[in-house]
């Protein structure tokens, strides 16, 4: 075998490159059937041909032979002598697969048995040739040159074919030393340039004429190329760029039946001659005569009827070849000083020359800028330094981008092969499937590309095997019998998206949920709270499979966890969407590269840690004053309430066991931090009860400590990075949050590989190293599942607490500096700040132009006994929406939203438009009744309600049974029901309401109930009503302070007709009127 590492490597790469597109071309040829696209066939033909050409020169006999046979079949297709059908294409595909395998294992390729492929290909060729030509296919001839040398073993069929095409055949003898090596060319380059003007039939190195070490010193190593071209002999010299004496025109007289073949009669079956005589012969390691004889006896001993070559027949030439190689080595060594070890598979990459030029330019610029920077620094010219640092900044970014681009590969490289996967699979399964591939140009980092291959294959196989139904099933469902799988890649938001969608049977969320429960992966309860999407995503759980029977193709679910883990390990996300009966969409989002990632820099103690941006959801800062209120302790775990959800907290310092230190300002030394609980601000002591709840710390203790607090104030606040990875979502508590930066991922040494908390390390701007956190592993290290359980418990606790009182969302604001007010948040449309000068006063009313209309403005002093607003340039306006009309209430900031337990004193400070008072943040705050306020200002807006009330007064009052435990709400709601003309029967809890209902069922027209009440809650009450036919006709409207999804779900189950938020008077009354068919 040829021993030049570099050339061999180049050949392998080039050949694999040729093979890359063949599959899709062949499939296109198959699709075309009788309408042969000659260009397409030519593509494939050329590929096979180039591979063959190089292989001859390299001494890769098996590869050469296989490529040759493939070429023959393709030649027939090209000349329209053969119609490519599915079976033939399959054989070709398999042949090319084998070729690829051989190329990848080039060292052993000559020993591989490929007779099966050769047989199949030969049969195709034979079958489509006229009788008289058939024999030529396997016939080999030697070419006898004038000086007596021979070029052995050329396929007569080939020569005849080219002669028939009107081509001239030449034997060109290059000299490896003078024509190629000295001219700094490369044999492969010579071959490919020849191919532009004609066809290479065969090539070899004539080692026989090199002679032996004992003989004359060598000055020539002939490299012979048998070449077919339309060029005339006279022109050939210029074309080949060598002396005319080395270009021989070949004519029929020079052909003689191959010597070695003459020994054993032309075999009826091709197997023998393929496997045996040609194996050692064209090898560049052409042996001395005694050795070349060796294979012949072997050939003769083979039975002429063999279908598979006898094993020893193959072995012997192989052994012989080994001997030859050894023998020739000295000569080869002299011929080429670069002889080295066997070819190692090295990964290499093709880069566009333009890109390399860009890189060169940038490198040049970088050097220039460096010189400028040095000059600037030497001359202490800060301006110049600054300028050049800017330039370097710019160039670096560009350089980074350009270098990244060199690693980028089109995704087509892997997507294309799925055409074949789908074709083969659907044939096996008897399904009809169209695969549509979009976005082949999308580029991805080489490493990522290589790692998504397996997950994608798995997903595609799943779609074919389980997604798409059989043609019969599809027809029964009224679908096109041909299924469709769309594989789409596109860029979005700095990420690469890959979507695999099929129009198959889709996923059944309930079936998946049931299966997950029966396998014990989740509990009933957990499933009950899941949306359909979440249920479908259960298939990503380890140990899950819904397939009733697992096929050998793929078991949907088997390995889906592996798929998702693989994708997540690349920093990607996988999402699932499916409509039963309609199809499934699987979306994968991947980062463009792994080498550089945007990250949030955080720090604990003196060390910085990077959190990859893909894992980061948001940043949260809890001011020192609120730490105690917001952080709760559930079991051993800290949790924080974030928009109604409980988020488990992980203290990075604790998880990693970092000894927390702080700089003591008094003497500038590091001291260990003794703070234990997150909620412990500055050693302030909390009494912790057994249930884990934190009781109020003593205020005096705190006051004493604060004087001697030696730490930075800011450090007392909690900085939390809210992160998520897979199923985990948690808050990572760090000391400080810094900027977001693009960091370069560097591998850490082998001693740190077992520290799974880190995904790597990076070098910061100041040259120090920062560790990159692995968010998912951190969660596992901290056994976050227990934290999750704890948060479940906390939720339960929470609900209990909610039941005990009513929590409402309020907007607080001020009128004059000392007057605090609050209004229900749900009535608020938005908050505006307007210039006081834009306020117009028309007919005693204030308005401001807003979006083409006039927004009426008013202030509290207009309706009740409050101080007028102070004069200011700007005015904050809270815009409410009542009766579909907007109006603005002018207030004094700060305007703030908060959730409080409603403990309203409805009597002490009651007046017009004020429903009561309560203490919020240590201020007596008045609760504004917006509805009453508007009614006082604009009674005409409420004429419709007045009409209904009047009508009811005539036709008989409607009676509402109203159950509510809070006296404030009871009075509040009752009063506006009565105002609208209804009669109200009150009950303090569900139990009392139930008793009242039983007594007075004939009078009552509708039931309005609070949900959370002592004795009997709203759910139970409703259930009772709906279960009893005597009462079930009544509409039940539930009133709640905060409606959660789970609540609404639960309510629907027991038969609640409508949900309304407390304090939204307008909506509630509308719903009541609608339920009673009034207005």
């Amino acid at each position, binding site marked *: 075998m040829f021993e030049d590492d570099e050339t061999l490597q180049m050949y392998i790469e080039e050949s694999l490159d040729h093979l890359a597109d063949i599959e899709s071309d062949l499939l296109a040829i198959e699709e075309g059937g009788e309408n042969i696209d000659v260009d397409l066939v030519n593509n494939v033909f050329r590929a096979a041909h180039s591979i063959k050409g190089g292989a001859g020169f390299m001494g890769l006999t098996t590869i050469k032979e296989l490529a040759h046979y493939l070429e023959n079949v393709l030649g027939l297709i090209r000349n329209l002598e053969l119609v490519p059908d599915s079976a033939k294409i399959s054989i070709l595909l398999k042949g090319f697969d084998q070729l690829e395998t051989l190329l990848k294992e080039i060292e052993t390729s000559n020993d591989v048995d490929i007779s099966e492929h050769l047989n199949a290909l030969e049969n195709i060729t034979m079958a489509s040739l006229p009788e008289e030509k058939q024999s030529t296919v396997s016939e080999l001839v030697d070419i006898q040159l004038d000086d007596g040398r021979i070029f052995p073993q050329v396929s007569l069929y080939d020569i005849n074919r080219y002669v028939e095409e009107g081509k001239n055949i030449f034997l060109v003898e290059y000299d490896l030393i003078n024509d190629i090596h000295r001219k700094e060319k490369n044999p492969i380059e010579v071959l490919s340039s020849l191919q532009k003007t004609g066809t290479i039939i065969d090539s070899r190195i004539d080692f026989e004429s090199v002679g032996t070490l004992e003989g004359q010193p060598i000055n020539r190593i002939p490299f012979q190329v048998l070449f077919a071209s339309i060029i005339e002999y006279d022109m050939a010299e210029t074309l080949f760029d060598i002396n005319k004496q080395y270009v021989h025109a070949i004519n029929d007289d020079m052909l003689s039946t191959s010597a070695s073949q003459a020994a054993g009669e032309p075999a009826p079956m091709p197997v023998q001659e393929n496997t045996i005589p040609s194996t050692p012969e064209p090898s560049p390691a052409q042996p001395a005569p005694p050795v070349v004889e060796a294979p012949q006896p072997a050939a003769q001993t083979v039975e002429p009827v063999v279908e598979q070559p006898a094993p020893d027949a193959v072995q012997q030439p192989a052994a012989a070849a080994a001997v030859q190689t050894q023998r020739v080595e000295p000569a080869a060594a002299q011929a080429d000083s670069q002889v080295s070890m066997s070819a190692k598979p090295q990964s290499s990459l093709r880069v566009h020359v333009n890109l390399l030029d860009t890189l060169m330019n940038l490198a040049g610029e970088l050097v220039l800028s460096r010189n400028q920077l040095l000059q600037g620094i030497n001359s202490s010219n800060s301006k110049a330094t600054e300028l050049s640092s800017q330039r370097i900044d710019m160039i670096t970014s560009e350089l980074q981008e350009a270098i990244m681009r060199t690693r980028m590969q089109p995704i087509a490289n892997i997507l294309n092969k799925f055409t074949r996967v789908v074709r083969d699979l659907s044939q096996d399964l008897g399904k009809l499937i169209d695969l549509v591939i979009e976005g082949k140009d999308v580029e991805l980092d080489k490493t990522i590309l290589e790692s998504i291959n397996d997950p994608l294959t798995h997903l595609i196989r799943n779609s074919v095997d389980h997604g798409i139904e059989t043609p019969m099933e599809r027809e029964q469902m009224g679908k096109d019998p041909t299924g469709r799988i769309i594989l789409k890649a596109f860029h979005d938001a700095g990420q690469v998206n890959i979507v695999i969608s099929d129009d198959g049977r889709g996923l059944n969320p309930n079936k998946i949920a049931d299966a997950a429960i029966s396998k014990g992966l989740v509990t009933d309860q957990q499933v009950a709270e899941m949306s359909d999407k979440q249920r479908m995503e259960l298939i990503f759980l380890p140990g899950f499979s819904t397939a009733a029977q697992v096929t050998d193709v793929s078991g949907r679910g088997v390995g889906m966890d592996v798929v998702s883990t693989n994708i997540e390990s690349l920093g990607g996300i996988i999402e699932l969407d499916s409509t039963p009966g309609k199809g499934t969409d699987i979306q994968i989002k991947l980062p463009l590269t792994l080498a550089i990632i945007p990250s949030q820099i955080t720090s604990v103690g003196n060390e910085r840690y990077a959190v990859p941006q893909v894992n980061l959801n948001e940043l949260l800062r809890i001011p020192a004053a609120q730490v105690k209120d917001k952080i709760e302790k559930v079991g051993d775990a800290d949790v924080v309430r974030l928009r109604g959800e409980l988020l488990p907290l992980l203290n990075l310092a604790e998880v990693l066991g970092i000894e927390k230190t702080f700089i003591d300002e008094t003497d500038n030394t590091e001291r260990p931090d003794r703070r234990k609980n997150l909620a412990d601000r500055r050693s302030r002591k909390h009494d912790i009860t057994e249930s884990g709840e934190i009781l109020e710390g003593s205020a005096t203790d705190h006051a004493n400590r604060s004087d001697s607090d030696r730490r930075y104030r800011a450090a007392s606040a909690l900085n939390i990075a809210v992160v998520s990875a897979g199923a985990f979502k948690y808050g990572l508590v760090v000391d400080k949050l810094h900027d977001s930066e693009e960091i370069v991922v560097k591998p850490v040494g*082998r001693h740190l590989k077992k520290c799974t*908390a880190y995904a790597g390390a990076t*070098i910061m701007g100041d040259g*120090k*190293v920062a560790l990159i956190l692995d968010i998912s592993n951190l969660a596992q290290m901290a056994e976050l599942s227990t934290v999750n359980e704890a948060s479940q418990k906390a939720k339960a606790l929470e609900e209990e607490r909610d039941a005990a009182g009513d929590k409402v969302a309020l907007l607080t604001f001020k009128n004059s500096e000392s007057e605090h007010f609050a209004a229900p948040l749900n009535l608020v449309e938005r908050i505006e700040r307007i210039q006081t000068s834009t306020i117009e006063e028309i007919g005693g009313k204030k308005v401001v132009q807003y979006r083409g209309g006039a927004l009426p403005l008013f202030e509290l002093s207009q309706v009740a006994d409050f101080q007028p607003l102070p004069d200011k340039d700007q005015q904050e306006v809270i815009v409410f929406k009542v009766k579909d009309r907007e109006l603005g209430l002018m207030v004094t900031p700060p305007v703030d939203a908060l959730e409080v337990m409603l403990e309203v004193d409805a009597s002490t400070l009651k007046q017009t438009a004020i429903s009561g008072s309560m203490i919020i943040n240590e201020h007596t705050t008045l609760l504004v009744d917006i509805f009453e306020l508007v009614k006082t200002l604009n009674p005409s807006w409420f004429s419709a309600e007045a009409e209904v009330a009047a009508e009811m007064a005539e036709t008989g009052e409607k009676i509402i049974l109203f159950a509510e435990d809070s006296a404030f709400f009871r009075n509040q709601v009752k009063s506006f029901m009565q105002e609208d003309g209804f009669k109200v029967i009150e009950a303090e809890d569900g139990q009392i309401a139930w008793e009242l209902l039983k007594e007075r069922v004939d009078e009552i027209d509708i039931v309005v109930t609070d949900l959370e009440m002592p004795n009997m809650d709203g759910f139970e009450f409703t259930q009772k009503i709906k279960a009893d036919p005597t009462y079930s006709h009544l509409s039940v409207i539930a009133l709640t302070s905060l409606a959660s999804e789970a609540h609404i779900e639960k309510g629907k189950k027991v038969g609640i007709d409508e949900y309304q938020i407390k304090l939204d008077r307008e909506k509630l009354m509308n719903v009541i009127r609608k339920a009673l068919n009034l207005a």
Partner: protein
Amino acid sequence: MAQERKETALEGNEFSTFYVGGALCGINILNIQEINKHFEITKVPQSSEYIKGILNLRGRIVTIIDLGKKLGLAPVEKSKDNRNIIVNSEDEHIGLLVDSIADVVIADQADIEPAPSNIGGVKGKYFQGVLKTDKELIGILNIDEVLKE
């Protein structure tokens, strides 16, 4: 490769010697990439006890090992004489933090004796041999063994 290096090392070569935990040790100078005093070391929580941390060495992340702790002696005490000996091992640079650097010693193969099972409280497996000079004994470190995880 490592084996080869070791052998040539023992055939009479230069050894860089240094003190760690009171013991005088040596490393064949051919194993040493450089000796520096960068101490901008980033601690790596959760790593083995003998890992001092990681360091940026011209763009490469280098693990620094407290040689004192690794050999089972006292940890290297912070002083102005501390040095990192950067050695090359399995295509990776690894730093050995030592108390202080001593002389470069040239020795013949004949001067190196097999290591006893214990040298000054350090297990014999960490040494390839012992070099006797006029004044002292120098334990020649077996780098591969010392750098085993």
